[in-house]
């Protein structure tokens, strides 16, 4: 690595002057010692002293060496000797000597200055590059940290969102309790009735095996239905991370409508399904989609609670759109949506219900959007509201 340029310290300047004096003195002594055998060698030795002084000590020392050696030459080697005068005959040689010395000093110190300037700019450049590199490195490190932080935040957010969705599901389940009780009791009632009927048919004087068998089969069906209800409820409560699979939206709608059937009949609401046959499958999480539909159904049932002058009908439709998306709509004959309510429907914690949490629709919307679809509300022509969502079909381009 090249030496870094730095301006000479005071000590270095003093040392360079000392070096000049020493060098010229050495040249003087050597010249004095050798003048008899070599004639006039001052030329050579003094030049060497001046060159070395200038080289190592720069122009100041160079000038000192020039002055010192000129004086020494005048005093010791140009007639009249031992005086600072120079005879006319010696003048050309002496002047040539001086000019040479000065020239050499100038040349070398110019060279040195250029070198220093070069080194300085190179050092500056290097310093700047190093500085920039450090800056870049710091920025990079900061960025990496930020990214890690963001990732952590995102993960935390995802966990929170999943948890919130689960809580909302459980809240919905709470609201559905009566419905669930009905849903479980209904098949159980059928099981009991059919099992007892089976026994009664067998206990007759002439046992009717055909009737007994039919009753036993119906009892089995009832038990199966009860266990399905329980499986549905369990799947709705479990803390599952979203899992997408190919599913038939009509099946999801039917299952969900069955879950809400009790709640509907409790409120004297009829749920009508108008499902388009042979819809393409959608890619989605069945539990989350069930949650969305349950929410919409519960809202619809709730919206019709004060209706007395018209049939309380909740229509659930599924259809295929021209663009390949699948649209599901839930239409009620309730009180409808005022513009004020309409504007705030999807705000978290906005609710028109006394016991509502106000999270149903925002969560539903985020679920649908996570599926690549859209959820929106509108007033329908006959006074109620209609909530619709779209989902990309499983074999469509957006999946």
């Amino acid at each position, binding site marked *: 690595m090249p030496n870094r340029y730095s301006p000479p310290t005071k000590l270095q300047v003093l040392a360079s002057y000392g070096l000049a004096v020493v060098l010229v003195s050495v040249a003087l002594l050597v010249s004095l010692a050798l003048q008899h055998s070599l004639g006039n060698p001052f030329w050579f030795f003094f030049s060497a002293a001046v060159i070395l002084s200038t080289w190592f000590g720069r122009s100041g020392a160079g000038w000192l060496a020039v002055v010192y050696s000129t004086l020494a030459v005048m005093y010791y080697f140009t007639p009249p000797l031992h005086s600072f005068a120079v005879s006319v005959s010696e003048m050309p040689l002496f002047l040539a000597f001086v000019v040479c010395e000065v020239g050499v000093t100038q040349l070398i110190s110019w060279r040195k200055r250029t070198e220093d300037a070069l080194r300085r700019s190179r050092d500056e450049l290097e310093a700047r590059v190093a500085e920039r590199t450090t800056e870049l490195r710091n920025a990079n490190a900061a960025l990496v940290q930020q990214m890690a932080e963001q990732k952590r935040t995102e993960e935390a957010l995802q966990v929170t969102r999943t948890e919130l969705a689960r809580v909302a599901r459980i809240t919905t389940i709470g609201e559905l309790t009566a419905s669930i009780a009905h849903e479980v*009791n209904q098949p*159980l*009632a*059928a099981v009991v009735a059919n099992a007892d009927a089976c026994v*009664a*048919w067998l206990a007759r004087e002439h046992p009717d095996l055909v009737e007994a068998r039919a*009753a036993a089969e119906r009892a089995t069906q009832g038990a199966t239905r009860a266990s399905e209800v329980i499986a549905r409820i369990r799947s709705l409560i479990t803390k599952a991370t979203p899992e997408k699979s190919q599913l038939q939206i009509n099946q999801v709608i039917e299952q969900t409508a069955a879950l809400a059937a*009790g709640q509907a009949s*409790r409120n*004297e609401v009829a749920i009508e399904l108008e499902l388009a046959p042979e819809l393409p499958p959608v890619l989605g999480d069945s539990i989350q989609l069930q949650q969305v539909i349950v929410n919409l159904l519960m809202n619809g049932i709730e919206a019709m609670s004060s209706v007395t002058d018209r049939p309380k009908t909740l229509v659930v439709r599924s259809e295929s759109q021209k663009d390949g998306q699948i649209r599901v709509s839930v239409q009620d004959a309730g009180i409808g949506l005022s513009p004020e309510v309409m504007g705030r429907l999807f705000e978290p914690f906005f609710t028109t219900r006394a016991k509502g949490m106000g999270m149903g629709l925002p969560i539903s919307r985020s679920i649908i959007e996570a599926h690549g679809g859209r959820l929106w509300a509108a007033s329908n022509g006959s006074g109620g509201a209609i909530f619709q969502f779209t989902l990309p079909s499983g074999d469509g381009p957006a999946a």
Partner: protein
Amino acid sequence: MKEQDPVVFVIDDDKMVRDGLQSLIRSVGLQVETFASAQDFLAAKRPDAPACLILDVRMPGLSGLDLQLKLNEAEIYIPIIFITGHGDIPMSVRAMKEGAHEFLTKPWRSQDLLDAIQKAIASGRELRKERQELNEVRSRFDTLTPREKEVLDLVVAGLLNKQIADQLGTSELTVKTHRAHVMEKTNADSLAQLVRMAEKIKNSPRR
């Protein structure tokens, strides 16, 4: 007149429950007719036989309680056994006040249900008998002339023949004749019986 066999009507929106009940009730030798909704029941032609009605309280459309009120308004008296998945007290009270025969929660014990059905049919039969008697009495009373009705009212009110004659501005003999006609036409053996029949007709609304 030979009485027709009793019929049990079942109204429940759940086919599985409906089929189960039907099988259960048929297995004990009773006739059953099932309906998916209250509207279907109202629209159907019902046989004139002793009957009882098994009704799910909560149903889409017309609820069980609504049907009960409608039947009462139409003066169709069928003993009702309510069944419900989630019986709550106010609902039971309302149903009982409107004359529900029994209130069972799902899942019920089949024996309870069959017992309730038997009792309900018995009471339905009783009700029909009373109603038939009443109708007979009423048709007998309907043959009275307006003058005879006036006399009847005053007799029932406890007035003596002389007082009645004074009130109607006629002779005691004429009153006696009217009174004899009333006793004859209503087939009353005694004054006490006449009063009881008159009270019965007054207290029950005309069908």
